[in-house]
């Protein structure tokens, strides 16, 4: 479980991007941070992992306050963290397999064979058996994302962060990646936090949803509650596409029927 208490982040240029954000990300669930482009999702995520230092407030990883940690302690904690970046961030001087093996090379004393086996296992888990020896530049965007997921989970992290895992991907591949992350989360009971502005993902895997608007946490709930919201910016966000207006109509229709039945 990760607790964020009253986090505020102002950049050097004077811009306050996070304003007094408090929330809880639960273990064993896919926690989603949603919001418009530029609302501060990436900044929130990078603040939670400590790439950005927040100006005030605290962030607790199962009770461990990272805002008070020295670099050494932070580095130890980070070995429990896996992260998928918005642009994949694979090392382009290494092959896909070497990328996934990298954390093992860096932090374990396993022998070469064990490391390769573990890396291949993770690559197999994300369905990338065929391209393990390719360079990151030689594989597609979706494959890069999956390779980055494999790298993020290779050390068996307790906390998994995914920044826009399916931006720029077709709906089918997006779904595959969403499901993959959700499965991994349940399988290993990890605390997963996902940034997205994709309503499809929200409806698929939104077990705990935090809505950020302009750097403020404006709403929190599950995918089943999201259509009943009366938070105005959230409504605007959801119903930006006509599809969801229709879905809401249908949702209300069945909802009303249910309540008439009960009477």
């Amino acid at each position, binding site marked *: 479980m990760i607790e964020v208490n009253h986090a505020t982040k102002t950049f050097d240029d004077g811009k306050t991007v996070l304003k007094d954000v408090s929330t809880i990300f639960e273990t064993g669930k896919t926690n989603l941070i949603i919001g418009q482009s530029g609302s501060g999702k990436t900044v929130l995520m*990078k603040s939670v*992992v400590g*790439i950005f230092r927040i100006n005030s407030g605290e962030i607790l990883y199962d009770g461990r306050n990272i805002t008070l940690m020295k670099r050494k302690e*932070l*580095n*130890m*904690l*980070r*070995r429990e*963290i896996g*992260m998928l*970046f*918005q*642009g994949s*961030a*694979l*090392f*382009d*001087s290494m092959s896909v397999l070497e990328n996934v093996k*990298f*954390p093992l*090379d*860096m*932090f374990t004393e396993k022998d070469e064979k064990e490391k390769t086996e573990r890396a291949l296992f993770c690559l197999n888990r994300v369905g990338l058996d065929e391209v393990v020896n390719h360079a990151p530049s030689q594989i597609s965007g979706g494959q890069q994302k999956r390779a980055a997921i494999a790298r993020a989970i290779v050390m068996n992290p307790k906390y998994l*962060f995914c920044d826009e895992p399916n931006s720029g991907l077709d709906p089918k591949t997006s779904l595959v990646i969403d499901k993959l992350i959700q499965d991994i989360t349940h399988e290993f009971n990890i605390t997963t936090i996902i940034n997205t502005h994709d309503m499809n993902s929200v409806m698929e895997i939104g077990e705990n949803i935090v809505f950020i608007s302009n750097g403020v946490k404006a709403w929190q709930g599950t995918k089943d509650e999201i259509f009943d919201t009366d938070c105005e910016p959230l409504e605007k966000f959801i119903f930006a596409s006509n599809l969801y207006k229709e879905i809401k109509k249908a949702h209300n229709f069945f909802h009303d029927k249910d309540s008439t039945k009960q009477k």
Partner: protein
Amino acid sequence: MIAIKEIEKVGAYTQLMYRVFAKPDKWSMFFRQYKEELKKQGIESLAIVVIISIFIGAVITIQMIKNMENPLLPNTLIGLATRDILLLEFSSAILCLILAGKVGSNISSEIGTMRITEQIDALDIMGVNSANFLILPKITAFVTIMPFLVLTSMFVGIIGGYGVAVFTDMITVKAYESGIQYSFTPYYITYSIIKSVIFAFIITSVSAFYGYTVSEKGGALEVGKASTDAVVNSSVLILLFDIMLTKLLL
């Protein structure tokens, strides 16, 4: 205002170097990177060093011949002048200015690109000291390979002059040979190597600094600017240190 900015930069540079010169997270990984860098910065610079030195050696010799057409000047001076220019200045300072262009822009654009594509964040998030992991192997590799590049340049430059003696009748081989042996001061080589090692440190650390501090939102534009800044600033620093070290060492 500009002065304050520059002082801030020196501060940031010092802080970065403090992180760079830490114990590597894992020595085996350090040596792996170190070997890569030796190849990339060193071996791949060899060709340009050889080509430039051979031509400059030949050109200096020809120019010396033209300048010393006066029959009162002994033509041993030609070989001697060629040798001393190479040993004292060309094979260290000028060579490093040239390499600042090649190696410096390479380092800053590589690290800058890693910054904007979040690869540095990815290292940090794994708990790796990214500054140490990326920059230390580059600095140590270039500093260790530099004396060899300098010696190669000296040797090849003198060969270049030799070529003039062999292939033209502007100077006899005998005169050139006696010239390059005349009142030889081995200390010049030491002096050149000391200088060049310091220049190698300047090139790699300054370029790495400009690359590492590219802002994440900067994009290709800032990477390009970082690489220009890296080359310009390391060149200016090389010139400044060249004067100071010459005063100190000669």
